[in-house]
């Protein structure tokens, strides 16, 4: 079964066609990258898929179900989760509490039981915090569990968002520039992390500017330009596509590409 199917989707802001007549599919498994220059519409596409924006035309199907117009928290329940290009951290909460919020859908939502702190709630808190600790460990933040998120460095927060998104136990995880602003060592760690996540069976959709990382991890690449599909295929196919080289990669990109290949 196709995991995600986008059909002839468009959205515009004022006069800007941020996404225009875009169709593509994402098959389950492995790592799918979406690349394109700044303003190509990658983040907008993520916002559409996760229900933060509503398409003006077209359809989005998740596991053959039309999910157009569903609010984000419902989509999370269906198995979609994401990170943000501009960090969306709960700064007043500790690292572990941030990840615990990601367990929300796996917890009981009986407010009366919460108010009375029934024994079941106490046990559930313990389970949630154990699971969150596991995930912090997985992303390499085990020592920061009780640190206020507001006091953590940028690179750590990028990984904290990944841990929180994984806590949802998504079928599809969308990562919006997880390595942006990270130094080469941190980028390598994130590269490793993404591959490990894919190995657990989660379908990863990756938006990333670091070409070396993209070419390294992706099984499938979709190239956007000005809201439209420019090309798609395997890393090798996209690399060889003349339209991609001309329109997107340019001189700077070609240098990066050469480095990635070399």
């Amino acid at each position: 079964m196709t995991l995600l199917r986008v059909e002839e989707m468009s959205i515009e802001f004022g006069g800007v066609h941020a996404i225009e007549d875009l169709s593509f599919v994402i098959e389950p498994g492995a790592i799918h990258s979406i690349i394109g220059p700044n303003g190509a519409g990658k983040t907008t596409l993520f916002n559409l898929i996760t229900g933060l924006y509503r398409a003006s035309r077209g359809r989005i199907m998740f596991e053959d179900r039309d999910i157009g117009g569903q609010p984000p928290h419902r989509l999370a329940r269906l198995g979609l989760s994401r990170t943000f290009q501009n960090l969306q951290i709960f700064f007043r909460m500790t690292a572990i509490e941030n990840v615990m919020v990601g367990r929300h859908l796996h917890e009981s939502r009986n407010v009366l039981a919460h108010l009375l702190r029934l024994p079941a709630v106490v046990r559930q808190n313990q389970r949630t915090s154990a699971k969150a600790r596991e995930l912090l460990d997985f992303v390499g933040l085990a020592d920061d569990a009780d640190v206020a998120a507001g006091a953590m460095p940028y690179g750590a927060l990028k990984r904290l968002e990944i841990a929180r998104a994984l806590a949802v136990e998504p079928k599809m995880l969308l990562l919006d520039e997880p390595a942006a602003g990270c130094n080469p060592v941190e980028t390598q760690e994130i590269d490793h992390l993404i591959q490990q996540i894919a190995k657990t069976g989660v379908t990863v959709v990756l938006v990333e500017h670091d070409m070396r990382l993209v070419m390294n991890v992706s099984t499938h690449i979709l190239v956007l330009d000005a809201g439209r599909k420019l090309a798609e295929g395997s890393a090798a196919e996209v690399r060889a596509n003349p339209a991609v080289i001309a329109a997107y990669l340019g001189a700077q990109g070609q240098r990066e590409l050469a480095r990635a290949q070399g």
Partner: protein
Amino acid sequence: MAALRQPRTGGLLVLAAIIAVLPFLLPNAYYFDVVILVGINALVVVGLNLLIGYAGQISLGHAGFFGLGAYASAVLPARFDIPPLAALVLGAIGVGLLAVVIGRPILRLKGHYLAVATLGMGLLIFMLLSNEQDLTGGPDGMAVQRLTILGYKLHGVHTWYWIVGGALLTGTWLALNLIDSPTGRALRALHDSEIAAQVNGVDVVRHKLTVFVISAVFASLAGSLSAHYSGFITPNSAGFLHSIELVTMVVLGGMGSTFGGIVGAAVLTALPQFLTVFHEYEHAALGLIMMVCMIYLRDGLLPSLRQRLHWRRS
């Protein structure tokens, strides 16, 4: 022992200890009266702090819910022969339902817009209580019957001290429970980032409504207690100034600090009682305190104090 050092358990024990010891230190009925007023305000503030301090949603109209609770306890027994205790419960249920109806449309608003909408809500309730002369006695107010439990009439500052103390302790316990639960985490999360909360599965609209209702019910119950204790109420209990006082208590004590809110309530309730100078300039003083807090003590009294102590120790 480890549990004692937790802010949750430790704080509750300290509060219980203060409530238990205070009666032996208070010299006369006047002091009891002040402390009871503190407790009633603190009960509202504990609920309001869930809404403002934890979930980050402002309300400038919560005195309206307080007033409705108070008038339910006054009007239902006097005009409809409903026993006072049942009136208190009916009032709380009615206010909860009203909070759902009002909250649904206005909680979609943010920041200033929400502030203005809740302000309007408070004014509306105030006008209603002032204008329904036949039911409420209008601006002159009305007398309230004594609260009877199992045929026993509750009166005297000592009895009321324990009732209000017990209510405050219970309310604080409930609030702390909520904060350390999935609902509480969802509320704190949506305070910092609504979109991140949403994509993590939090139904933001539902959670805002939940905390709005809970805080309204806290206010209603406190209003009922206040009405029975003082034996007389006027629409001013639902007025704008009272709403502002309540918000100032939250801000002064510390937004997002349950015990801080109680300290805020204690300071702002007790000060005008003991400083007559303060009394004359009460409104000006409230404004000044708000300004000073925002400039120098953004975290509020208790959290700032705690930070400073922590700082010195380490």
